[in-house]
């Protein structure tokens, strides 16, 4: 496919980067900020309701959520949650560490820092916060980032509370874990001046790099999130969330551009055909003894099936918007919000669903369908089926008018995006009345300025520590940079070995289903210390990592049980001289290593055999 002329199609793109900070406590309470949970203390069941805002109206995205009438369940754990996290105690004073780091970040992007910071409450309607709002502070504005001679505006830098992680999503309730809630994170927003998908990726990489250079950010899955805002002329602003791999960002953006272009084409075609969605009709009776499993499963517990005719939609509901993505997918995703499993439409293989000729005929009659009309069917519990088909029809109606503004999720398999929810209006924000504004003193500003990391200096330092140029470069861009520096400093182990473990061995293990990234920093430190002291060999280090030790004590256990103690010095000499034939050094080396691979350092043995 030819690369489009992005300027010509009105491509507008900006990023929102969220990065968790590495602090001892959460932003507004004394809880552990590193998600080391401990025991489950309680599970709270809460209800939230949309409250009327300043205009007396509840905005669309709010009502979309509250229409679900769900209960929110919050699991709280011993070390990571306190009364503040579950909306039972006013916030404590702000974490000084988090404030200092965010000021440094603001300075890094040459942002203006307000003389007085005001803590705000940003309304949250999906239940992810027990208080129904998230605390956030504007730390910087009017900043910029120079990337390959292009200046990208950094419109806003804020310090905010992390929301809670979803555990499960049932029809009438959502369960969250509040361990994450309140962990400090900085949000960095660029202006909409990114020119190409490639540039979006470059900017995301660069911002991530700069943040990691501060040495004060968390690493690992979920510790950094990149959201993309984009639109094209005639399309609409879409917010894309959930990038697991930064590498595919440009492809996802390209596919989203295609999706919007096709939706525009669909809109034009539908208008030409005077297409419109019909009204929902209860067609449950038709399917009372159906062989269609999708429907009969739903009818078992007193469910219903609703159908609607779709004049002018034939061939269009099934039209592709991308790989495995059709207008039908979009309609179905809207329907699913009400709790139904999905939608059947006439552009699909209807006999394949087990719907009989007879049933189809009856359906056409009851829906009063013309020859060229399409139809949709939604089955589910009585009220969710009706709400579901209404939502699907609403999406079809939008298709005749415009591309909707939506928050969408990356589908990492197809590199397309899937509907999550309508885009929220400008978040309602009002001051946190439980906390005072914070005056930023000159000394705080100066300290922030001083702690801005120097990219050249760090690059130089890495090139001295790591002899492989590729590995050094890789380390600079890696999430493990901070850990690498800490381990090198604290354990005095060979930096080259640490780098190869963190960058290569970890990836290797992950490919084999072993998540070495989950090993705690202190445990890694202990492993490398033992290596540096000569207690274990390189091979033993790798062996220990494979077993994912959960604590320093469990390293001892592994060493004991797997007999991983290094054989060195006299002990090695005795072992070698007493047991192996020295005449063939090559063979001796091979024999010894095949037996004691994990216990003997090859170099040492080599010297001994010389």
């Amino acid at each position, binding site marked *: 496919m030819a690369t489009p002329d992005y300027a010509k199609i009105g491509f507008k793109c900006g990023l929102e980067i969220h990065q968790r900070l590495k602090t001892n406590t959460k932003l507004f309470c004394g809880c552990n900020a590193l998600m080391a949970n401990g025991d489950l203390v309680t599970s709270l069941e809460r209800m939230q309701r949309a409250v009327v805002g300043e205009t007396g109206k509840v905005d669309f995205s709010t009502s979309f959520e509250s229409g679900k009438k769900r209960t929110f369940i919050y699991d709280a754990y011993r070390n990571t949650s306190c009364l503040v996290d579950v909306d039972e105690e006013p916030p404590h004073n702000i974490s000084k560490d988090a404030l200092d780091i965010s000021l440094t970040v603001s300075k890094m992007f040459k942002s203006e820092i307000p003389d007085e910071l005001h803590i705000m409450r940003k309304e949250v309607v999906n239940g992810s916060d027990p208080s129904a709002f998230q605390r956030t502070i504007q730390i910087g504005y009017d900043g910029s980032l120079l990337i390959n001679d292009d200046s990208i505006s950094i419109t806003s830098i804020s310090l905010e509370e992390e929301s809670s992680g979803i555990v499960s999503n049932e029809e009438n309730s959502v369960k969250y874990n509040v361990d994450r809630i309140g962990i400090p994170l900085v949000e960095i927003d660029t202006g909409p001046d990114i020119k190409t998908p490639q540039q979006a990726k470059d900017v995301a990489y660069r911002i991530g790099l700069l943040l990691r250079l501060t040495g004060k950010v968390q690493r690992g899955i979920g510790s950094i999130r990149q959201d993309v805002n984009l639109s094209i002329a005639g399309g609409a602003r879409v917010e894309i969330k959930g990038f697991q791999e930064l590498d595919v960002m440009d492809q996802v953006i390209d596919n989203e551009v295609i999706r919007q272009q096709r939706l525009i084409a669909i809109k034009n075609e539908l208008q030409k055909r005077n297409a419109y969605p019909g009204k929902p009709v209860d067609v449950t009776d038709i399917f009372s003894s159906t062989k269609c499993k999708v429907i009969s499963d739903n009818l078992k517990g007193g469910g219903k099936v609703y159908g609607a005719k779709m004049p002018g939609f034939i061939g269009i509901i099934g039209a592709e918007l991308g790989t495995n993505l059709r207008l039908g997918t979009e309609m179905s995703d809207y329907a699913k919000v009400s709790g139904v499993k999905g939608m059947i439409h006439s552009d699909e293989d209807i006999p394949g669903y087990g719907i009989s000729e007879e049933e189809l005929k009856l359906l056409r009659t009851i829906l009063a369908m013309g020859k060229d009309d399409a139809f949709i069917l939604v089955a589910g519990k009585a009220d969710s089926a009706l709400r579901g088909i209404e939502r699907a029809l609403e999406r079809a109606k939008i298709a005749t008018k415009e591309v909707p503004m939506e928050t969408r999720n990356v589908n990492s398999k197809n590199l397309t995006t899937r509907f999550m929810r309508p885009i929220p209006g400008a978040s309602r924000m009002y001051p946190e009345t*439980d906390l005072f504004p914070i005056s930023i003193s000159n000394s705080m500003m100066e300290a922030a300025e001083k702690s801005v990391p120097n990219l050249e200096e760090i690059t130089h330092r890495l090139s001295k520590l790591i002899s492989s140029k590729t590995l050094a470069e890789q380390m600079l861009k890696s999430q493990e940079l901070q850990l690498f520096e800490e381990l090198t400093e604290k354990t005095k182990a060979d930096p080259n070995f640490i780098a190869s473990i963190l960058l290569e061995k970890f990836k290797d293990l992950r490919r084999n289903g072993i998540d070495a990234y989950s090993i705690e920093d202190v445990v890694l430190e202990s492993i490398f210390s033992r290596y540096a002291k000569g207690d274990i060999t390189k091979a033993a280090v790798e062996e220990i990592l494979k077993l994912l030790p959960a604590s320093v004590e469990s390293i001892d256990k592994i060493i004991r049980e797997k007999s991983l103690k290094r054989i060195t010095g006299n002990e090695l000499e005795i072992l070698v001289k007493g047991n192996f034939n020295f005449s063939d050094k090559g063979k001796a080396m091979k024999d010894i290593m095949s037996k004691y691979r994990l216990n003997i350092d090859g170099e040492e043995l080599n010297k001994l055999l010389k």
Partner: protein
Amino acid sequence: MPAHNLKSMCVIISMYSKQVEESISNANASVGDEIELFDRKTGKKVHGTLMPKTEVGDPNSIVLKLSTGYNVGIKYTDQKEIHLISKKKEHTFVKPELKKKRSLPKVVMIYTGGTIGSKVDYVTGGVYMLTKPEELLGAVPELADIADIEVMPLMSIASEDMGHEEWKKIASAVVDATKMNAHGVVITHGTDTMHYTAAALSFMLHDLNIPVVITGSQRSTDRGSSDGFLNLASAVRVAAQSDIAEVCICMHADSSDLKCSVIRGVKARKMHTSRRDAFKAINSLPICYVDSNGEFEYVGKYRKKTQNGKQTSAFTNMEPKVAMLKAYPNSDPEIIDYYLSKGYKAIVIEGTGLGHAPTSTADESHSWSKKVKKFCEAGGIVAMTSQCVYGRVNSMVYRNLRLISSAGAIHCEDMLAEVAYVKLCYLLGNFSVKQAKEMLVKDITGEITLRSEIDSFM
């Protein structure tokens, strides 16, 4: 109300420094207008909506709401200029309408203020008391399906600012409500002193034949997570549907939003500064629980409505000269002399343990018994309760108990200290000192129980 909402209660007035106020008015700008702050030296501009200054923060920092919704404070100096961009747009608030269903039981809602009646002003960011209690009903529309609600706005104050005068007004309002043939009364109230008001009404209201349900919230109702929604709905349910003929408190039973407990007014106490389940039944079981589906579960004893046809009346005289003291190690009882000299008629002591105050102390000046004796001999009443909160006091188990008791202190059984205080105000306001003394340890309205239920602790 919790302290964290208190400080921001009345901050709508702007508190900029004189210099800033002048510059704002010279620019013909006022709070809510869109302005631009121009720095002559750097040429930089910041654009935003001018916000009021609260009593906290630097009075020389101009607070602007940026287009992102964030507020920032920017120091005003001589090199800055304020430019008016546009005057604020007045927006009209769509007033929530409450549908009335006359066929439903009539409930009079007496509005007194507190967190449940406070909300954030989205323009200024301050928290203020609702002046139109109907707004509260708008936030809980399902109330219209439970009862035919008549709102009676009485006052709009925080409960820590309430005193005897407010109790009298509320009691009279309840009497008025009974004359309006209300099936029940709901009183919205700040939580800090809710249990004092509950006790006061319990004593003041005679021949009460309807539920009088006091409720409030620990989180203001403009927050989607407010506990006030369930509290209010449950309180209205109790008022409309129960046969309770007592003053009670209806608040969250636990930290989830699943049910409320209904606690006898003289057996309730705020036991936590900020949790939504702060109110607990002390030395008794709650009367009942009401869940979010409206189901009642009765667990404790209560007085039921009767057909005696008596009109409820309010005995609102209250003796102001009643004090509360806490006994603690090394405490100086001379404070009792002070109260005596000021003409105080009664003192409630929150004693230690079973109802002790320091008695046989090494330093004799720290022994309370002499001072207690002096106060009692002068005609005053000393009531002894326990700072343990839970449990019954006793005047006999230990020698020191017997000493303080023989000095004249009256041990008040399982009555809460706060209730003893309110009861003495009421007794001395309406009866002779002799009668008051006798009635202090007699149960009037459920404040003293003869049996300590085994499962009535924590």
